């Protein structure tokens, strides 16, 4: 199956189309079956992935519009591989755990289309195809938020759509300009990212292009001043919407940085370290504080997402394998953990139809299973070692320490502030006496809910204890990326920066000793 990626992309879409035929009663089973197949396919992808090859694999390339230089160009490397797997997993689990009953058919079909676009984004190697899936992903999400959301759903969904749309249009201009430069230098039109990689751009071009791509990605991430759509989107979205949004859609932004910004504009990326670090710091600290002030459980997690994305952003610009690899790992970890947290909040919402913290208290007494799983996810969220959350966060901070100890120390407060707001939620919702009468008869998780969460708990712990199967391919690809950036960088400052952030400081000349061998 050389064309596994195409199958992955189009299978959900075709299934979505066929889903129109399936009746309302059977659609949920249909959706779960389809996403399960997709997930199995992604697992197959993983197992047939050559772990030692840092390059792009499963490449498919069909010229689509040669005159524009647009081709149907797919491929996956160690960086995208696991995001794809996670996409399939979270869609599957999200769908399995879904409590919605209204218009379920439309929901399932939208989700299937959404899955197509998400996988598409992560496998696309042609800028236009990437953009295509990127934009297309907004549509089902708009529908999901807007049709099944809370009272402000329309506002939230439009805000989500327009905000991202605006940013990505500027990114599109950047892409077009990039293609133009490519054409100028080579005489050939191409939007293939791998072709673009070969370009060595002058620094001022790099800066402008970086800025254009930055806007698109930063809004999606969402980075600090552009983050205000996310509390609305999360606050209003139905559970499944939040899960997908937090787990996968946000990763599109960070993935974009890895796929485009870093390798294409190494010098500009190095220059951007400080500004981005500052923005990330604001994200980390400021949104963590805002999360603390929230009254709505879901908003806490929404803001915490932003805070965690700050950490991811920081890692991306650490310019060393530790930071970058950690950052990519953190994307997975955040996807799973925040997804699970949103699912948990959704489950309590299904029971009580409120997410206000003040309505709860003492839930641990009536819903122990729920409390335990929430606790595990909470601990993963605050980065407890041996949970998935630690590995990424630790590596990011470790990596960035080399770039700037001061910034790392401030960013490191995320482990404190994260604990502060998460424990507040835990305390307010789960601890204390069970005072609210409405809560006294709450049922603990049912089988469907439990079994959709247990795999996540298992992953949280498995990858916390033994992240190697995931980290290894990421590491290979990240090392290749860094070597590539180093080679491509034209300014001395950038080269120095990459060198410095990848070397040890001591008088010891070699790096032969690597801990624990």
């Amino acid at each position, binding site marked *: 199956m050389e064309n596994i990626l195409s199958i992955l992309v189009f299978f959900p879409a075709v299934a979505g189309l066929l889903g129109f035929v399936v009746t309302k009663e059977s659609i949920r089973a249909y959706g779960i079956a389809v996403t399960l197949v997709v997930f199995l396919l992604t697992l197959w992808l993983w197992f047939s992935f050559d772990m030692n090859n840092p390059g792009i694999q499963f490449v498919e390339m069909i010229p689509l*519009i040669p005159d524009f230089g647009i081709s149907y160009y797919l491929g996956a490397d160690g960086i995208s591989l696991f995001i794809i797997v996670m996409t399939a997993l979270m869609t599957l689990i999200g769908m399995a755990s879904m409590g919605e009953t209204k218009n379920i058919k439309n929901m399932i079909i939208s989700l299937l289309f959404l899955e197509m676009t998400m996988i598409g984004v992560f496998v696309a190697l042609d800028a*236009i195809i990437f953009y295509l899936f990127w*934009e297309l992903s907004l549509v089902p999400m708009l529908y999901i938020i807007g049709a099944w959301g809370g009272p402000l759903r329309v506002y939230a969904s439009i805000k989500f759509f327009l905000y991202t749309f605006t940013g990505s249009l500027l990114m599109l201009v950047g892409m077009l300009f990039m293609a133009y430069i490519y054409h100028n230098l080579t005489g050939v039109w191409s939007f293939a990212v791998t072709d673009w990689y070969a370009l060595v751009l002058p620094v001022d071009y790099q800066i402008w292009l970086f800025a254009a791509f930055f806007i698109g990605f930063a809004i999606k991430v969402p980075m600090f001043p552009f983050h205000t759509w996310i509390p609305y989107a999360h606050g209003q979205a139905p559970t499944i919407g939040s899960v997908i949004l937090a787990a996968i859609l946000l990763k599109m932004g960070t993935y974009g940085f890895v796929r485009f910004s870093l390798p294409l504009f190494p010098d500009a990326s190095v220059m951007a370290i400080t500004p981005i670090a500052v923005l990330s710091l604001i994200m980390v600290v400021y949104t963590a504080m805002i999360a603390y002030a929230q009254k709505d459980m879901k908003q806490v997690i929404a803001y915490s997402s932003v805070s965690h994305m700050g950490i991811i952003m920081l890692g991306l610009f650490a310019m060393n394998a530790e930071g970058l690899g950690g950052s990519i790992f953190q994307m997975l970890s955040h996807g799973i953990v925040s997804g699970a947290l949103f699912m948990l909040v959704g489950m309590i919402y299904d029971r009580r139809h409120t997410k206000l913290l003040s309505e709860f208290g003492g839930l641990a007494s009536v819903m122990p299973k729920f409390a335990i799983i929430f606790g595990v996810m909470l601990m993963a969220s605050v980065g407890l070692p041996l949970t998935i959350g630690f590995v990424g966060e630790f590596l990011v901070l470790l990596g960035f320490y080399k770039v700037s100890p001061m910034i790392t120390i401030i960013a490191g407060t995320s482990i404190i502030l994260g604990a502060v707001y998460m424990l507040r939620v835990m305390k307010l919702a789960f601890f204390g006496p069970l005072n609210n009468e409405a809560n006294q008869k709450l049922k603990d998780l049912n089988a469907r809910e439990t079994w959709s969460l247990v795999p996540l708990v298992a992953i949280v712990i498995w990858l916390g204890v033994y992240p190697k199967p995931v980290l290894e391919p990421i590491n290979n690809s990240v090392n290749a990326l860094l070597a590539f950036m180093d080679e491509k960088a034209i300014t001395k400052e950038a080269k120095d920066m990459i060198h410095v952030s990848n070397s040890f400081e001591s008088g010891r000349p070699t790096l032969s000793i690597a801990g624990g061998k």
Partner: protein
Amino acid sequence: MLEPINVSLESLNLITLAPMLIAIAGGLIILTIDLINKKLDKTLYVMLTLLILFINFGAVLGLNVNERGFFDVMLIDGISIVSQLMIIGGSMIFIPLALTSKRFHEFAYPEFFALFLFMIAGFQFMAASDNLILIFVGLETASLALYTLIALHNRANSYEAAVKYFTMGAMAAGFFAMGSAVLYALTGSIELYKIAEIMATRMSETGLMIAIFGSSILLLVAFGFKLSLFPFHTWAPDVYEGASAPLAGYMSVVPKVAAFVVSIRIFGMYIDLGLEWVRWTILILAVITMTLANVMALVQDDVKRMLAYSSISHAGFIMAALALDTTEGNTAIFLYYALFMFTNLGAFAMLWISRHKVRRFHKRYDHPFEKFAGLIQIMPMGAVIMAIFMLSLAGVPPFSVFWGKIYVMQAAVNAGYIWLAVIMGLNSAVAAYYYLKLVVYMFLKDPVKSVDIVYYNISKPLMVIIGFATVATVTAILYIQPLVSYLYYMISASGY
């Protein structure tokens, strides 16, 4: 004494006239049939028209590139072929929209179809000539027919629309004539290629620049009116609102294609002469047009009117491509319209099938947003199709207009106008809001009144047309490549 003139039939190259003659003959045939038998109904005429257009289309396809005919009055170059094909294609999509399940006034007239064919002939003449006289006559033929077609919808709004369009059109005609006069005064010729030649020799003369600029502005007023460029766009929303929905959709594409061909010829000439001033004037107007129309579309309460503003905005978008005056820019114009045509006509057709004779939802509007509220619950298929058209118009890939958009933007970038591409991008973002508004109404709101049916005017032929438009919109990615290479070939072959 005048010498008798000997002209060989071959040198006239009569074949270049064939397409228009077919259309005119078709119109006459329809009139004749009507004279013979008064009882025939619109289905016959629609199909006849379609067949005539079909022959016309074939005739255009059979033309060779870069030929002149009939004392060089006719100019069959790449863009004239391409634009004629688009004009006919658009018309072929339009005309079956007459076959609604309800009856509307204009389609009861066989003359409607005759006028329609004459109008197409007029557009074809506009496109297939660089002689200002023929352009003018063709333009007026088409325009006069169009005014009538609008008025024939026969209700207060359509008269108002027709009057507004007509009056402003008359003024624009005055400006066109004046502009031509100035060009004639400058060059002693009214054939554009000649004008360009002579103008080039006179560029260095002192004191002439005012006349050259002036002529460009006079012509710009005339074509700015046709292309609904700010500040000559004011007719557009009202006329679109007053006209029947399919005609409004038609107006936003076909007449503009014809007008763009002429504009490319005229303003391309100015810019080629090195008059950056003209380029900047057009660019600025284009930018204002797209922005202003977008902003105004935001606040509309009626879908049709919103689409009218959006059409203005799209026209501004394309006008900017024109100002680039590169082969890519010119290709972009046609590509954009080719893609826009399916989507926009589809969207208007969707409005058309939802047309009720009574205004149940709003005193003034036929298609207020409320009408479409909760459509997904009432008619899911219709809602999805409409949403696809809206998203396409908003420039969401992979739907057709997106490809036009990136081609235009790429053309802008390639010409070094990155700021223009950025403005286009931002405008698309603003535009997304109002397209989204309809999507939001359809998908995210509950029906205002418990209406069982919105698409009341639907019929099989309309379904076919809409289906076709939908398929063309969705599968654009598959045919872009041949389309672009064909267009690019044709346009570069004609030297633009």
